């Protein structure tokens, strides 16, 4: 019994200590904001404005911001990467120049549960100033609710068309308003291969689908399986197969059909979509062509899939994935030595050299001058400099030049994108969530696993398309 008071004293001490700890923390974070506001200094800032390390649109809010007009304000950005994971750090590196030049603090609050938390935040009237949507389709609901500002309201047509290829602007247009500006993207039409072994074996990079199929047979005859494929990705299992389908759609039918498919006017159960899926099925369902055979595709995680390519000797020779896949390659693998990449070859020459991409679009929820300034900053490639210098994504701006890239690999992919005759956004990311992030994944997985035939799977996907 005598011990009890001691226990309570300890408990209250701990509580007190943690409360003190807490009361110190916010003070430390608020201090910079409190010391900066004396905004009587624009006069000294003005000369520096000319030296900012990025392009500034004349007559916009960013031009005012670099003179210090909004110093001390904060802009909140939400997104799908954690603030201090590799992508989050690259993002922060990209906006650092903006913060230094304008005195505006960019408060990045994103996390992996972005899709869930943003809907809670918006619902509660606590929307971030800017949200970084990896899937433009997800922003559509907020556009319909009238929560998102049209970028044409504050960015002139001439500036937008100078910064962006029209395709990017089309992809950011939802329900007739230009809902956001693209910031960065991933190229998806890429095939990776173990370069040193590949050269030693004397294989040639295929430039057409026929050449690719010949190469597959050649590698199989030499005793190896040409491909490593894995589609397991937890709740998102199947997205790798949707990427292949999209790439095949671009290669076996017209862009008009692709767009109609995205919009829902060309059903999944149409000869075009069927043909696209059947084309890649030739490769996937040939046990001699896939490491582990067809049955292992569904159970191999997309993260682990490329790893056998790096075994010595390689267990497979090709892997198709977006440029972010380098993060999953074994540590110490060197670009151009241990691995290289080539363009996923076209099937039918008449459809040119299409390129499949996916990217992040910035949309503005709260219209304030300093938020406009940051949106404007996102329209220049320097805002993505963290990714260009740290790897993992490319700048979506047509004003981005190869010499902005610090990483040769990304510069090479950017070059491929420039050479492409057309490019389209990942269809499943544009389709309504029920389909693009639901039934499409689910039924294509059943099809790959063999538990559904193609017709049943495609009809089932069509049935889930919202009215």
């Amino acid at each position, binding site marked *: 019994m005598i011990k*009890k008071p001691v*226990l309570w004293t300890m*408990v209250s001490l*701990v*509580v007190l200590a*943690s*409360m003190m*700890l*807490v009361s110190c*923390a*916010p003070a*430390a*974070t608020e201090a910079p904001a409190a010391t900066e506001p004396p905004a009587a200094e624009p006069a000294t800032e003005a000369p520096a404005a000319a030296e900012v390390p990025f392009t500034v649109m004349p007559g916009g809010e960013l031009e005012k911001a670099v003179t210090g007009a909004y110093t001390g304000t904060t802009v*909140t950005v939400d997104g*799908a*990467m*954690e*603030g*201090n*994971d*590799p*992508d*989050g*750090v*690259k993002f922060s*590196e990209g906006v650092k120049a903006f913060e230094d030049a304008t005195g505006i603090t960019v*408060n*990045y*609050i994103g*996390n*992996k*549960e972005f899709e869930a*938390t943003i809907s*809670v*935040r918006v*619902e*509660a*009237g*606590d929307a971030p100033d800017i949200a970084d949507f990896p899937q433009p389709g997800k922003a559509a609901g907020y556009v319909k609710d009238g929560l998102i500002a049209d970028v044409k309201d504050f960015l002139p047509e001439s500036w937008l068309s100078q910064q962006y290829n029209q395709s990017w602007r089309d992809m950011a247009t939802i329900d007739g308003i230009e809902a956001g500006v693209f910031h960065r993207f991933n190229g998806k039409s890429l095939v990776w291969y173990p370069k040193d072994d590949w050269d030693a*074996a*004397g294989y040639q990079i295929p430039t057409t689908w026929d050449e690719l199929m010949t190469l597959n047979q050649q590698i199989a005859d*030499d*005793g*190896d399986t040409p491909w490593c494929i894995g589609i397991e990705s937890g709740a998102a299992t199947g997205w790798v197969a949707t990427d292949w389908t999209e790439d095949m759609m671009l290669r076996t039918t017209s862009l008009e059909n692709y767009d109609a498919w995205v919009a829902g006017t060309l059903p999944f159960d149409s000869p075009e979509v069927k043909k696209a899926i059947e084309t890649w099925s030739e490769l996937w369902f040939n046990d001699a062509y896939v490491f582990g055979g067809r049955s292992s595709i569904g159970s191999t995680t997309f*993260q*682990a899939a490329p*790893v056998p390519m790096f075994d010595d*000797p390689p267990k497979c020779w090709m892997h198709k994935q977006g440029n*972010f896949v380098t*993060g999953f390659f*074994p*540590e110490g693998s060197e670009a151009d030595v241990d691995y290289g990449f080539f363009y996923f070859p076209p099937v039918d020459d008449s459809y040119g050299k299409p390129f499949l991409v996916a990217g992040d679009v910035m949309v503005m929820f709260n219209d304030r001058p300093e938020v406009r300034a940051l949106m404007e900053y996102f329209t220049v490639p320097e805002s993505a400099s*963290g990714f260009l*210098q*740290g790897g993992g994504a490319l700048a979506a701006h047509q004003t981005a030049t190869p*010499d*902005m*890239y*610090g*990483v040769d690999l990304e510069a090479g992919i950017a070059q491929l994108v420039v050479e492409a005759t057309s490019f389209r956004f990942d269809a499943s990311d544009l389709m309504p969530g029920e389909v693009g992030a639901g039934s499409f994944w689910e039924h294509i997985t059943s099809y790959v696993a063999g538990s559904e035939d193609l017709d049943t799977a495609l009809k089932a996907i069509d049935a889930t398309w919202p009215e």
Partner: protein
Amino acid sequence: MKSGKRQKQVASLVVNGTLLLLVLIWTVPTLGIFVSSFRNRNDISSSGWWKIFPYRDWLPVREIDTKAAGLDPNGVMEVEGTSGTFEEFRAGIETPDGKRLTWIGNKRLGKIEVQELVWTATWNFTMDNYEQVLGGQDFTFTKPDGSEYIVPGDNMTGAFLNSLSVAVPSTVIPILIAAFAAYAFAWMKFPGRREMFILIVALLVVPLQIALVPILRDYKALNLNGTFLAIWLAHTGFGLALATYLLYNYISSLPRDILESAFIDGASHFTVFTRLILPLSVPALASFAIFQFLWVWNDYLVALIFLGGNPEFELVTQRMAAIAGARGQDWHLLTAGAFVSMILPLLVFFSLQRYFVRGLLAGSVKG
């Protein structure tokens, strides 16, 4: 007599054996993660953690250059007295002297390894995972001119302090309030006591997720978003129903005589509560404290909503999510991360453990 003893022995052997087996089954995954946390990513994905135990495997003794030996993989090949086709060599041909000849690689790049079956174990341990989890990852950037610069990542210290700052008050505040409430429900007579208690029990089944949006809206109006006070209040509210219910069961089962003699001696309710009830309910308080602490420590969602608006206040759970990377490319760090984030809950559990079983039983005795 004797056979009875024998029977008892057999019975206890069966029971203990079964328990031991269950304990082993429960522990094996943890052991696997623990071993994996000391292995690098390539090892984890290429071989199982159980390869740290000795096993027999074919290891190469020497290699034969197939090109120099002039072998044609398309026909039947003759290698050191053993002949076979490419497929046979690829699967491995055992020679009479206990060796095995295996073709490694494909027909173009192949070599033949002479292998022997030996005992081996994969002992390739590293502290890298722990270093990256505790010390933070470094991110390298290459400027267009080729120069590199490194941005250091966050370490765990801040996340640990933040998690503590959230978890300790979020445990203590609901317990204090619930103890008061439980006492009132158990020993004080006031109108509506029964109805209010039923209401609290009913609140036990309300999922906290449905409260997120309304609370966030209120917090925004009160300007509380992203503050520690916000999350303390949220956890207090979410934990209060269960706490009150558990403590009520315990406190109402305390012997009536003690309280009555105290009242006769002129003690007020407050005196009885602080001098008698609190000291007597330490087992129940401690066992609930463990529950609540573990729940708050492991919470990700509530923190994300109410504290997520402030990146300065990153908790351990959020840090863990960040460590794996946006696309899960650094999944191997989660093994080490799991053990690091486990340390504190384990400490709390073991230091309060002696109350735990007593506390759990406490509420259940009273019908």
